[in-house]
């Protein structure tokens, strides 16, 4: 996948913030606080590359996907597609932008309309963007797409319930491909699938990227899956990006304690390493995003935390080593947590 990636930025995310108001009161609703779902996230996606985003539930990774897709307006920050701010676009301009960015969702059971045939589901983008496929040509285009994602083109008149989970995810991918986008945001695309099917869909995503020169933002909680597909990886915790680097930097030289804890908690499918493995066990749960801790948000669960962590919020920046490996920790220290 690396062979296609360039250093030409296609999507620049700059300090994106998304807060959801928390309302209380039976008759008169008043805002009593904000869920700080995404709280200042910045990164750049280069053309043809896959940027993996990992984090546990509630870290804001799916909200980030919604904001990038312009499904949710941001509270603050900017996102530029090929240098142009996406939040400033309206009307025809916005419509043209939507062609360039598509999303694949996690749950292939609820993200497809059960009353529409597969042909209608995959062809629906053409209704909205008729310039991509003239009416007479649509059936053929849809069948081509089915073929591209490894489904039988004759299935065009079937309904979603006639397909298995892996096949439905392929339908979702075909729909995302229909308008020939440049960027696909994959929000946990394989986490609802069985092990034997997961590999098929991951291979498909890899092949499509090579074939069409796609750029992916690949959001997942499974660190092994993310490593397999990503060129660069960002780690999120409680609405913040805490570490960002190449796949190799994140997995073999993780510098942020949270990344280290995540890596050491992943069960490794090799019983011969289970005795000798170093483990970091976090205590407690993720704090509430309504009222995150002062300073570093991870400090309440961090074994390295000192005075400064509660007063100064660490910035995401290059700390040690070289390259562009950034981490947001006052005590960042690169370590290899992988067994063997």
């Amino acid at each position: 996948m690396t062979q296609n990636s360039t250093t030409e930025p296609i999507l620049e995310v700059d300090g994106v913030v998304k807060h959801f108001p928390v309302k209380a009161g039976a008759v008169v609703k008043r805002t009593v606080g904000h869920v700080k779902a995404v709280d200042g996230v910045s990164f750049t996606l280069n053309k043809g590359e896959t940027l993996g985003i990992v984090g546990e539930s509630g870290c804001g990774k799916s909200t980030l996907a919604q904001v990038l897709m312009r499904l949710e307006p941001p509270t603050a920050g900017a996102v530029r597609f090929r240098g142009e701010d996406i939040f400033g676009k309206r009307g025809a301009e916005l419509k043209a932008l939507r062609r360039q960015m598509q999303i694949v969702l996690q749950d292939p059971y609820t993200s497809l309309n059960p009353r529409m045939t597969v042909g209608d589901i995959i062809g629906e983008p053409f209704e909205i963007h008729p310039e991509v496929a003239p009416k007479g040509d649509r059936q053929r285009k849809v069948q081509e797409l089915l073929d591209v994602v490894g489904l039988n083109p004759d299935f065009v008149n079937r309904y979603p319930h006639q397909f298995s989970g892996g096949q439905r995810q392929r339908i979702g991918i075909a729909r995302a491909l229909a308008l020939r986008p440049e960027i696909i945001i994959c929000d946990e695309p394989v986490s609802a699938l069985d092990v034997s099917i997961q590999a098929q869909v991951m291979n498909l995503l890899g092949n499509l990227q090579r074939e069409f020169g796609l750029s992916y933002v690949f959001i997942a909680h499974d660190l092994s899956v993310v490593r397999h597909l990503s060129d660069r990886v960002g780690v999120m915790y409680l609405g913040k990006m805490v570490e960002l680097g190449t796949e190799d930097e994140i997995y073999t030289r993780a510098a942020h304690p949270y990344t280290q804890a995540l890596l050491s908690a992943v069960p490794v499918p090799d019983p011969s390493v289970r005795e000798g493995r170093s483990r970091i066990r976090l205590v407690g749960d993720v704090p509430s995003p309504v009222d995150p801790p002062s300073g570093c948000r991870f400090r309440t669960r961090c074994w390295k935390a000192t005075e400064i962590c509660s007063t100064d919020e660490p910035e995401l920046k290059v700390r040690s080593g070289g390259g562009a490996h950034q981490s947001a920790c006052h005590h960042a220290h690169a370590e290899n947590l992988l067994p063997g």
Partner: protein
Amino acid sequence: MSETTAAAPHGAPQDNGAAPPLLEVSDLHVEFHTRDGVATVLNGVDYHVRAGETLAVLGESGSGKSVTANTVMGILPMPPAKITGGAIRYRGEELLTATEERRRELRGENVAMIFQDALSALNPVFTVGFQIGEQLRTRRGMSKRDARNRAVELLDMVGIPGAKQRVTNFPHEFSGGMRQRVMIAMSLALDPDVLIADEPTTALDVTVQAQIMDLLADIQREREMGLILITHDLGVVAEVADRIAVMYAGRIVEQADVHQLYAKPCHPYTEALLASIPRLDSKGTELQAITGLPPTLTRIPSGCPFHPRCPRAADRCTEIDPPLTALPGGRASACLFAEEMAAR
């Protein structure tokens, strides 16, 4: 051939004459009667677990791992399910023919179970203290106060901070990981010696999963329990299991010690599963995906149910359905090529 298959009806071969199994499932058959016909959900399942041992039952959705567990617990919805054959023995006592009263005695007291989704397994309108104490009051005749105190002890044991205060909380006031701890506390209330954990960490985040798996392993060691861990996660299995039973289309296709299984799988399905997972410690290019889909249980293929997806399949695989057959080293595999694979 006949000599080696002799071990099959009683499931996994008896390794090195250790203690008799606490719980033994043999040749269990279960059907579901559905609109689309009869689904053969279990087609001769054999496994056993001994005291102080962790048996992992590994399989994908629809392989029958949860149905086996629910049959053992006697909580299978009948109809649509129908047990058409086999036996389940707890310390030698046959459960399938036991009275409902006897089964209720054993449930919780001897064999307990925890479920994947703790939020729907707990009753939302009662405090966790009430729910943990309920069994103690009805089965042990404890007073309300004693049951409450015991519930606090149990919550404390499973690592819930401030157990004394939390005992009056409702399930929704706990996080996912804490809720799973409550479930574990509840399952331990009557001191069972077999615990069945059905995907206990699947809904949890990886750092919380690690906490819960550590807790289960500690409890199992301390109490010398037999733990049956049902999961689809090859990583979790490698970290905690002593023995593994791999399920496919309603039967055990391979059974082996954890180290044997990962070092040298002797069934093509196990081999393919291990090859298809992405690894944390390497960045491959192409995963070796298993082609096709698991069979529809109303139409299981003739011969070996895995043959349409199997890279080793030969003509005879479409006709012969190989039984789970013992191999050297106390392991077993249900494949015509098992001996060949073992000799590699």
